């Protein structure tokens, strides 16, 4: 096996949680709010369906091919050539996504905090740090996730500081235009939750296999809870303006002012959430490297870390020319692109694999019958 490290199921759950929510917590609520208006708190719950389905598919496939990642077993499922093609698709998808995530992170930082710093510096420093984590392997990423997971939740404690400025009235009228707006708003977080497919790269390295599925489902529940809570929070504070802001969560945290002393909290909140971004990017980066080295059938993945890091940097520059286009991709392309690669394609693999297994066992039965 390429990766000798092992992680625990709970570490994997935390990795998945951060991998989905680290970037999502910033940008999803604004997009959801634009479509679901005051029903936006409902959207993450619809989106959780997508996450659950993806987890189920990835786990079923894993049960059929334990100890193999999706890049490896796709060759077994659909044959060598088609399998290689699908494997390449996965690798390319995660490579592009790593670049995209790095760029979104950097755009956010430059737009809000470091106006004069060239974006390349923000991107390259992040990739450098992640390179280190990826070289160290899955165990280290797992432990970083474990370490940063509780820290990541600290900003939630700041929410009560705005209780004074929250108006429950904004919640009503509930479901004014039926369920459709909240489902529309669920498309983007649904795309994000399909990233749960990262599971298929992590499960082979989980020490306590039997808990793998449940901890992945806990991750889905955690993401849903956090997003719902954040959505309630910004709805009560910002009311009808949630759809106007690109980063409503930051605007809301910025509104905190307690006794003229607890002010300008958004910098602290962002500093904390960047830790999550680090874990997220490391996981995507790691999965790309691992997948690529398995695709090339290499004996060690470490030699691929730097070259792929270089590509991640390139893709981050190529992925979109300006923030607006990036958001456009997030809203109009990713809700279909993400689930297509991470949920629908694996579903096809699962169906074919299941049919094959059935065929095989029938064949075996036949041959066994002949021998008798």
């Amino acid at each position: 096996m390429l990766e000798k490290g092992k992680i625990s199921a709970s570490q994997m759950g935390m990795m998945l949680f951060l991998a989905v929510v680290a970037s999502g917590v910033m940008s999803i609520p604004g997009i959801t709010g634009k479509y679901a208006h005051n029903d936006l708190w409902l959207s993450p719950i619809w989106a959780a369906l997508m996450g659950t389905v993806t987890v189920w598919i990835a786990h079923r496939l894993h049960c059929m091919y334990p100890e193999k990642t999706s890049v490896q077993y796709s060759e077994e499922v659909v044959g060598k050539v088609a399998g290689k093609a699908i494997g390449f698709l996965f690798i390319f998808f995660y490579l592009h996504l790593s670049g995209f995530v790095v760029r979104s992170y950097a755009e956010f930082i430059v737009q809000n905090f470091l106006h004069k710093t060239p974006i390349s510096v923000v991107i390259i420093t992040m990739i450098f740090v992640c390179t280190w984590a990826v070289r160290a392997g899955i165990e280290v990423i797992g432990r970083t996730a474990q370490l940063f997971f509780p820290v990541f939740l600290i900003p939630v404690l700041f929410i009560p500081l705005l209780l004074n400025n929250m108006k429950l009235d904004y919640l009503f009228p509930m479901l004014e235009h039926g369920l459709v707006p909240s489902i529309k708003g669920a498309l983007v977080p649904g795309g994000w939750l399909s990233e749960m497919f990262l599971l298929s790269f992590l499960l082979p390295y989980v020490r306590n296999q039997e808990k793998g599925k449940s901890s992945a489902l806990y991750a889905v529940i955690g993401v849903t809870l956090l997003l719902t809570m954040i959505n309630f929070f910004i709805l009560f504070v910002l009311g009808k303006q949630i759809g106007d802001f690109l980063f409503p969560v930051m605007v809301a945290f910025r509104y905190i002012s307690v006794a003229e002393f607890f002010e300008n909290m958004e910098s602290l909140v962002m500093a904390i959430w960047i830790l999550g971004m680090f874990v997220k990017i490391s996981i995507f980066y790691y999965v790309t490297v691992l997948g690529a080295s398995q695709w090339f059938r290499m004996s060690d993945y470490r030699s691929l870390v730097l070259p792929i890091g270089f590509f991640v940097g390139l893709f981050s520059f190529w992925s979109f020319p300006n923030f607006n286009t990036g958001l456009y991709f997030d809203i109009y392309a990713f809700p279909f692109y993400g689930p297509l690669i991470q949920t629908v394609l694996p579903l096809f693999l699962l169906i074919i694999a299941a049919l094959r297994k059935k065929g095989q066992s029938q064949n075996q039965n036949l041959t066994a019958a002949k021998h008798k």
Partner: protein
Amino acid sequence: MKVKCLWISICCLLVAGCWDRTEVNDLAIITAASVDKAKNEEITLSVQIFLPRALGGGAGGAGGTGGGQGKLTTMRNSNGPNIADAISKLQAKIPRQIFWGHCKVYIFGEEIAKQGLADHIDFLVRHPEPRNRAYLYISKGEGLDTLDITPSLERSTAESLREYADLHIGMAVTLVDFRNMLRGESEAAAIPIIENGKKLQKPEDIQVKAVMVGTAILKRDKMIGSLTLHETRGLLWLRNEMNKAAISVQLNGVEGIVSVNPIRTKTKLIPHLENGKWSMLVHVDTEGDVVENGTRLNLMKPELLALVQNAVRADIEARMRMTLKVLQQELQTDVVNFAAAFHREYPKEWEKAKGQWEKIFPQIEIHTQINVNIRRPGLISVPAGVPQEEIKNDE
């Protein structure tokens, strides 16, 4: 080992992020800004800049609030077609980098408020530096005069205005509140009005004149009228924003005045729609203490206390009705946001009616239900300055 050292040094160099370092002594910290109408479709942007040297030099070893005799702020202004442009011209007049992060007050001149605030609000929301918790004010006359006043109690007028907002004497409207009003169902907004700064230049003027003089009423982003301070109190009751008040009432057939301080108040709007008839029940719950009893009545008697409660109830109702009359008949603008209450309760009917809200609003019938509970009499039971024999235990 060597590789590790190399990694660490690379990371140290890159992670420090030196491009955006800002030194406090390179910044011109803006404490308040005002936007006024200028000639040729231009605006005048004035900023109040904090003078750190004045604070440090004046206070010296004494430290803190004593401060120097001189002004702690200075005012600069510049013209331009919009705020962003005016800032770049303003920067040419200030040797330090303009910094908006501590600007807590924005003042708009009356003229520009009548023209519309939309263009100017955008900068404040879009630019990452200005705080969304900054308070908005509309100034009679021009806003820039206010920035140049030396207040006697606070460090700057910005600080005074922020304190006023915290006191809730009039409305307190932050940038986020204002946008919520604009985006609300009624598309009407209210912003507190402050006195023309020209009238407050001399210390003796500051001693006698009130700064908060009322509330500007805006339809969308354009100011169309105003409420007096007295009418503003009614608006605060209606909007459930009342938290400090002294209600003084004269009881029927009794000499003297009783004052009550409501400690806790809650206003609920309960809309009702039947056969196309729109009506609104304003439900007020308030509880408070007696703070002054100028009558001869012994308010420890429950039936006499009930009299006071009834009088307070009537007073609150009168205040709200007065404000509503102005809003419904004269200004025809729904700043209380009855529209939102109807939207919440009757979403389907609202969907049909929202185009004609301006016609519906003036005709809404108002009912009130006010519960006044006087919980405590203060520290003394009988009227304090009255001889024992003159105290009345009944009417």
